[in-house]
């Protein structure tokens, strides 16, 4: 079963983990439309090992009482920005990749206080060092898209993890497809 996108989850309310933070309303606009071509399934594991995946958000409490400022970590836990995917050994942007980037760039335009780190990742059907370079190319292709879309270049930095941080350690086409990706990490 497909889990609804986190974007859908936050369409009305951006929920923070209430245990830690209480809750706060958020008036972020939902994306106008879903991408035409569905990208591969969203990875279910968190991109960073030190950040555990969030539990499913509970139903919203009736009234937000105290509001704490939203942190970048909060937004990342909510998977505000989409992961986008690439073809084997390529870094050009597929249609579904562009669709995801369009959504992400709209959010970045509407939330100009945040910066973003783009992580380029690869599947393991390549050598480690070449995949580092390929990850750099993927991350940079995404960055160029965002700049062209009007995001200030100073808000977007890149990093490559090559094949070092797979979301799926498997060796199937399905696993490789999930690992050939660019992830967005929102930064303060």
């Amino acid at each position: 079963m497909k889990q609804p996108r986190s974007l859908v989850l936050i369409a009305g309310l951006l929920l923070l983990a209430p245990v830690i933070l209480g809750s706060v309303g958020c008036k972020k606009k939902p994306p106008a439309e879903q991408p035409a071509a569905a990208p591969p399934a969203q990875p279910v594991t968190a991109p960073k090992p030190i950040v555990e995946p969030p539990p499913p958000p509970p139903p919203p409490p009736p009234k937000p009482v105290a509001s704490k400022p939203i942190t970048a970590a909060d937004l990342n836990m909510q998977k505000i920005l989409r992961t986008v995917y690439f073809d084997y050994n390529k870094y050009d942007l597929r249609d579904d990749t562009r669709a995801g980037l369009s959504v992400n760039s709209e959010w970045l335009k509407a939330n100009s206080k945040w910066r973003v780190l783009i992580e380029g990742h690869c599947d393991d059907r390549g050598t480690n060092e070449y995949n580092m370079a390929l990850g750099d190319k993927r991350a940079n292709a995404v960055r160029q898209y965002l700049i062209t879309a009007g995001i200030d270049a100073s808000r977007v930095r890149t990093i490559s993890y090559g094949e070092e941080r797979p979301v799926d350690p498997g060796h199937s086409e399905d696993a490789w497809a999930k690992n050939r990706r660019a992830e967005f990490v929102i930064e303060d």
Partner: protein
Amino acid sequence: MPQTRRLSFLPEAALYVLGMLFLAPSSSPLAQTPPPPGGPPAGGGQITGVISAPGLTRLALAIPPFRLSALASAALRDASDEIHQTILSDLEFSGYFDVIPADRYAGIPLDATPIPFQRWAATNAIALLLGTVAPEGERLALEGLLFDTRGEQLILGKRYRGETSVARQVGHRLANEIVLHFTGRQGIALSRLTFEGRVGKTKEIFVMDYDGRGMRQVTRNGSLNVSSAFSPDGTKVAFVSYKAGTPHLYVLSQEGTMADITPAGADLSAAPDWSPDGGSIVFSSAKNGDSELYVHNLATGKSQQITFSPASETSPCWSPNGRQIAFTSDRTGRPQIYLMDAEGANVRRLTFEGSYNDEPSWSPQGDRIAYAGWVDDHFDIFVADVATGVAQRLTDAAGYNENPRWSADGRHIVFTSNRVGIYQIYTMDDNGNRPARLATPFEAWGPDWSR
């Protein structure tokens, strides 16, 4: 057929020429003090029989268990066994020798005087190593005497002292002396491997002896650490770490100091390799997604870009004479291996077969380049002749075989393979024979072999 090989003979007086090597038990276990003043020079250097070409018959050696003084403690006995075993495995690994099985000399007394050379020669062993281990206070002393069984002469004599904890190093040293004597080449028994190992969800850098013993973790930063490479003198390891947030270049010294040597603006760096003189590091660094090669001078702190191409240039490897650099570029659309002058001029393509060739490693003799090539849906290790480009495939196993690096004598290659389902470090002869796994209790990648 046994080789009739002329061995070198020392003059009569050389019976007493024992190379004195001391293993100091201090924090620096391999510190070596010079021979006593006025003492004789170390043995070796009188080589007449040089064996180096592949395919030669291996020399048969008899290496019976070492004699122990009656007063030897249990610890000393264990150390003696360990030295003995170390020498056996070093000499077998070298590929130059066959150590004959003990049952072939079962009836020969080890303490007979004079040595019954005819009986030893009848075992087909061309040389006999007689070792004696004795206590010296808390330390051990090993005397190793190598005899020509047919010439009935001492051909090499060595004495070592050290604590029992350095027994393996004592064995490695004597094995190296035997290799040097017969081949005229330095042995690799004291060489080490550096590699990256899985620790939790990340990778840390490890170092171990070439035979897989003595493994220790040398980084503990909890970040991603990859691409470790020994300095030519073996005292430092360069590697890439993400501990500062982005991939930087670091140099870790033997003393444990760690220096961030990343040049300004090279925050996305990878794949360091040392120049043969140890003075510079070539590496790749990405700017605006474009990975190019740079040479960083460690003394001046200045770096210079040496490739200029919109394609990705990665995995640089210095030639042993320092004049050239091999690297990977996808300037034709797919990664292939290229050579150029160390300053970046005179680029020529080395590999043409296959759709994906990467990770060049220049042999210490300079004549060959090992690399990983994609074939039949996996990576295999290949070795290409530098002059002709003609390549030979060395692995043909299930799984991926990657990251080839040479031993200092050019006779072995260390690499990574997941043929058992997880990535592990392997060694093999330079013709692909005798693949051997150096098992680690976790996944391991990216080995480099010290000179």
